[in-house]
Each structure stands twice: as C-alpha cells, then as structure tokens.
C-alpha cells in the first residue's frame, strides 16, 4: 500500500472532520437561537398565550354589538406561597371592542412579608393578541406584609378583530413568589421591582 494512498486518505478524513465540526457548531448556535426565535414567533402569533407586559392604549373602536364574548378569570397561588388572589367576578360577558374593569384582591395569609407577581396566561392562545390591557397589577411585583390585603384593578379591552370562533376567553393569573426581589427588599425594605 503506497504512502501516497494513506496520505490522501488522511487528508480526506481531516476534511470530512472539519466539515462535520462546522455542522456541529452551526447546530449548537441554532439550538441557542431557538429560544429567541421561539419568543419572537410567539409574540407575533400569540401562541404561548402571553399578554403584553406593558400597559397598552385603548383601541378606539365601537363595540361589536352583534356578538358577546365570555371573559373568565381564574386565579391561583403557586406551591409554597401563602397568598390568595381573587377576582370580584369570575366571569363577565362583553362585546368585542368594549372595555371593562375588574378588581382583584391580593391577600397575604402567611406570617411574613413576601414579594410575588401574578403571571397571566390567556387561553385560547389566539385570543392573547386581541386582549389589550390598559392597566394591570401584573405589570409589576407586589410586596405584602403578613396579613396585608391589597386591591388592584385590571382594565382591559377585547378588540373587534377577535376571531369569530372564539366564544370564551380565559385569563389565568398564577401567583409566583419573586425570591430574588425579596432577599434584596429585606435588606433595603424596598421591593426590587425589576420586570
């Protein structure tokens, strides 16, 4: 077997390995890029049922008197957080285009202060693009002392371009403790309101 043959093989192997390493590196970058891609995709399509994290303006449009949509509110506390969150009404019916205000009450049932945030999720997810929040407690963290009670409004509007087949929109608020903020706020008695 000539050494020429072996050298050629060695070079060919090195070339293949270099190419596979390029593909490998590209796939590594791709897997990291999937996270922002997913976020952008969801923001455009509303697929993950998230709503805007900032107050939006009222879209000036007349109410669509021809149909009524049921708006439901579900609230829950996550494991390990002794809070309750309740809505003044479990559900209401409104016309698309109309705005409404619902009051929510936070209660800290524990024996110390906690910082928590209500994280929203909309179902069906297609509706999340058509739910505009003019004011919401969910834009910031809440800090409640032991036994404290706090009432906050949600002002929202379902826009007229809500798809016809959506008859019910469910808005879920889950309370999550914000641990990072609490450890900071304990020291400074100032809730860290990073968003």
């Amino acid at each position, binding site marked *: 077997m000539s050494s020429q043959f072996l050298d050629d093989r060695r070079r060919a192997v090195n070339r*293949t390995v270099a190419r*596979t390493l390029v593909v*490998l590196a590209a*796939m590594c970058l791709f*897997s990291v890029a*999937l996270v922002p891609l997913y976020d952008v995709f969801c923001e455009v399509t509303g697929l*993950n049922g998230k709503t805007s994290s900032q107050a939006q303006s009222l879209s000036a449009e007349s109410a669509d008197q021809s149909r009524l949509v049921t708006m439901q509110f579900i609230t829950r506390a996550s494991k390990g957080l002794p809070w309750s969150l309740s809505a003044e009404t479990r559900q209401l019916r409104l016309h698309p285009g109309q705005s409404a205000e619902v009051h929510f009450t936070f209660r800290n049932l524990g024996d110390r202060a906690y910082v928590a945030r209500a994280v929203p999720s909309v179902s*069906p997810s297609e509706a999340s693009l058509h739910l505009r929040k003019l004011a919401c407690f969910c834009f910031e963290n809440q800090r409640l002392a032991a036994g404290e009670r706090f009432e906050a409004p949600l002002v929202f509007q379902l826009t007229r371009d809500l798809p016809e087949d959506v008859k019910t929109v469910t808005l879920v608020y889950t309370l999550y403790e914000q641990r990072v903020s609490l450890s900071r706020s304990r020291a400074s008695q100032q809730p860290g309101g990073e968003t």
Partner: protein
Amino acid sequence: MASHLPPGSSAQSHQLETAGTVSDTHYAGPKGLMRWLLTTNHKEIGTLYLLFSLSMFFIGGLFAMVVRAELFQPGLQLIQPEFFNQMTTMHGLIMVFGAVMPAFVGLANWMIPLQIGAPDMALPRLNNFSFWLLPVAFTMLLATLFMPGGAPNFGWTFYAPLSTTYAPPSTTFFIFSLHMAGISSILGAINIIATILNLRTPGMRMMDMPLFVWTWLITAFLLIAVMPVLAGVITMMLLDIHFGTSFFNAAGGGDPVLFQHLFWFFGHPEVYIMILPAFGIVSVILPTFARKPLFGYASMVYATAAIAILSFLVWAHHMFVVGLPLAAELFFMYSTMLISVPTGVKVFNWITTLFRGSLTFEPPMLFALAFVVLFTIGGFSGLMLAISPADFQYHDTYFVVAHFHYVLVPGAVFAIMAAVYYWLPKWTGHYPHLRLSQWHFWLSVIGVNLTFFPMHFAGLAGMPRRIPDYALQFADFNMVTSIGGFLFGLSQLLFVLVVVLCIRGGNKAPAKAWEGAEDLEWTVASPAPLHTFETPPDFTPHRH
C-alpha cells in the same frame, strides 16, 4: 448440532479466507486492564461498547422489574411512589442512552470497517475517548440513586418545571452525565461519518455499501444535528436551576412549553437514531437467510433518508395536548402520517425479499423476522397516536407505553440481538448454541408480547402511565403484563449464557459463517483477527 452449519461452506471458506488480507496478530501493547483502557482497535472498542450496553441493559431491566413488581397488583406493596418515579425515570434513561444507543455504536465499531474494507475507524484515539466517557457518565447517573433526595424522578423526558423548580438536588449530576453521554455520541458520529465517507475500499461506491453502513451514516448525521439541541436544553435547565435564569420558569417570564418544543425537536430524531441502524441490520440479515439479494436496495436508502429528514418536522405530535393551534395540530398530524410512507416502503421491501426465497430459520433470522412483524405492530399503534383528536384520549396512557415499547424492545432490541447472533461467529469463531438460542428467542417473543400487548388495552381503557397505583379494573391486565415482564427479564439470562458459551467454545465457524452472506466481513477469518484489511481488499459489486 452440526445441522445448522451451512452445507459446503468450509471448502468455500478456505478459498475466501485468502481474499481479505489477514495480518499476524502478535500483540505487543500493554496487557490486562491497561490494554482495554488504551486500546484504539475498532474491534476491541466495539466489544467494550457491546459489553457496556449489555450491563446497562440488565441494570435498566432490573429497574423495570421493580416497576413491574410494584404494578403486579393494585395498591402500594413494595416501594413508595417517590422511589417508583425514580425507577421509571432511570429505567428510561438507562435503556435509551446506556443500552440501545451504545449497542448500535458497538456494532458500528465492529462491523463498519469490516463491511467497507477499512483497516480501522478513521479516528481510533477519539474512538477510545468516546467509549470511556460512557462508563463515567453512567456511573454518575447511577450514583444519583444514593444521593439525598434520590435519583431523577421526573420521567425520561425530564419536562420542566418538574426537572427544574421541583427537581431533586441530584438533577445537576443527571445533567452532567447526559452532557457526557451526548459528547460521546457526537464524537462517535463524527468518527463513523469520517470512516464511511473516506475509508471505503477502492471500487466500493456509496450505493454498493451494505445497508447497515448506509443506515448508520444517516443516523450519524442525525446525531450531529440533534445532540447539540439536547446539550442546549439541559444547559438551559442547569442555568435555570443554579443561575437564576428563567428559560422554562413562568414566574420569571419563561415558558415551560418551550422546554417541550426543544426536547422533542431533539427527541423525535432521537427515536429514529434508535431504530434506523436496526433497519440496516434487518436489511442485511433477511437477504442472507432468504438467499436472495435485498429487494429495492436503492429505495431502502432513499426511504431511510426520507425518514431522517421527516423526523425534524414532526416533533409536536408528542405535544398535541399542550394547546397547539388547530393549524399546528393538523400540520403535525399529517407530517407524522407521511412518515408511514417510507416506513411502508421498507416493510414492503423486507417482505418482498422473503418472497420465494430459500428461507432457513437460524437464530438471527428468527429475531429479524420477529422484528418485521412486531415492529410493524408498533408502527401501527404509532399511526393511531398520530391522529391528533384520538391522541387527546391516548395521551399519557399505557397505550403510549405499549407503542414505544413495541418499537424499542421487539424493534431496536431484537434487531441488536439478531445482529449479535448474526455476527457472533465472526467475533468468536464459534456458532452460538443452537438449542439455547432458540429457547432464548421463543421465550423472548412470548415474554415481549405478554408484557406489552395487554398495555394497549389498559391504555385504551384509560390507565395513566407513570403512576404506582391503579384502579381495580386494570388489575388483570397488569398482572399479565408483570408475568410477561418477569419472563422476558429472566429469559435474557439465557442470552448471556449463549454469549458466554459462544466465547468459550462451540461449533467452529468458517470465514463465511452463513451460506447466503455476501458482504466483505465474511471474507476474513472467523474469529476476525485483531487487524484486518491493512491493504484494501478487492471489491466487485455483487448485487443490488
């Protein structure tokens, strides 16, 4: 006993033995343990992979036996639910990453150089490294069983936030062990690609390669493509657990559903990584014992490539119930069903290969035939699960468990066993004990069907998976399943006995151990000497 020796093979084999260049096997390297630690020989590394896989198969199997013992009757008898969850999780992880994948890599190491006429793998030292990562990775994974808080308990799919916010502390070790197993797979895949593309004997074109080589080439590309995604997703878990990020944590603005998308973008190609080499093995064994060329060689290659490409477009069929929009449900339902077309081509080709062949039923053939029948059953239940509206009923029930065990046990595992029986004469120079092999086959077939067939009914009736207790109406199905499981588990001890006996002795095998075997590996002596094809063998395309 001698009846299964292919008649007239010995005369032919002497002539063939000279076809491949057989070098002297005087071995001058280190002895004992260091020999195995430092070896760069593809045959020795292949053997190490296979032995590692076999031991993991028994450890994972032991966990399955614990699960089946607990599920033998309703109520909690033997173990606590927390430990039950650890057992199901570890069983899945060990079997997928520790048993099935290394077994295929071991077979690739042993057989790809022999089948393409190469002296060794292209990167022998890398080969050594990618093997020795595995014992470290799985020692670490198994060590989590003895850690405070116990082993991972969130299922082999490790969905966040179960595997992040609510996970036991040992999850960090699980992440590192999976990183190591992933690096091992990637390095192995690079090596296999470099070997197949560059070290074929002169005259062997791509479309002359045995199908086992073809399927492994495609599998290696799948590994390169999706292992980085697995590495990425477990790294994000690590960051979520220890560094305060919120990739999958809704409290911090993350999204648990993102985890499922990323996991299954890796996970669906991963399940094909575990079955494509099996397709290759069966496509090599069936023609040998039908004494006919494989029907539709080119269509087999294209079908394998089509399955591999489609595997990237179907991931969300594992997530039909997370709340996908209607368009996505339809897209993933149809794309999943599309996969049954190339798979159907394969099954058609296998059956047509058998048609009017001179069939004999040696142990490798028995396992390969069982593969074709039982894998197809698993394929059909997969088609049922692909129907999105029906999947809302089947999701997370024992129907899913039955489906993926049918494609993995009588699918992947039977193909591995078929391969072992097929190539044992080449590895050891002896035929496996015929009677014992037949006993092993029949007990395994009965055991497998007794275990997994009733799971279909339990699942359709609504029994959820991953639960240590169940409602009384599932008691009979579960008792049958457990009895079948114990039978299957015990009969694998026979497999070890056959392998040990075959290493120690048995009927001598000639170079061409099976009458209908045509590929290059049958031109070297049995047992294959340590170094083969140091000069490339002559190759003339003989069929396809």
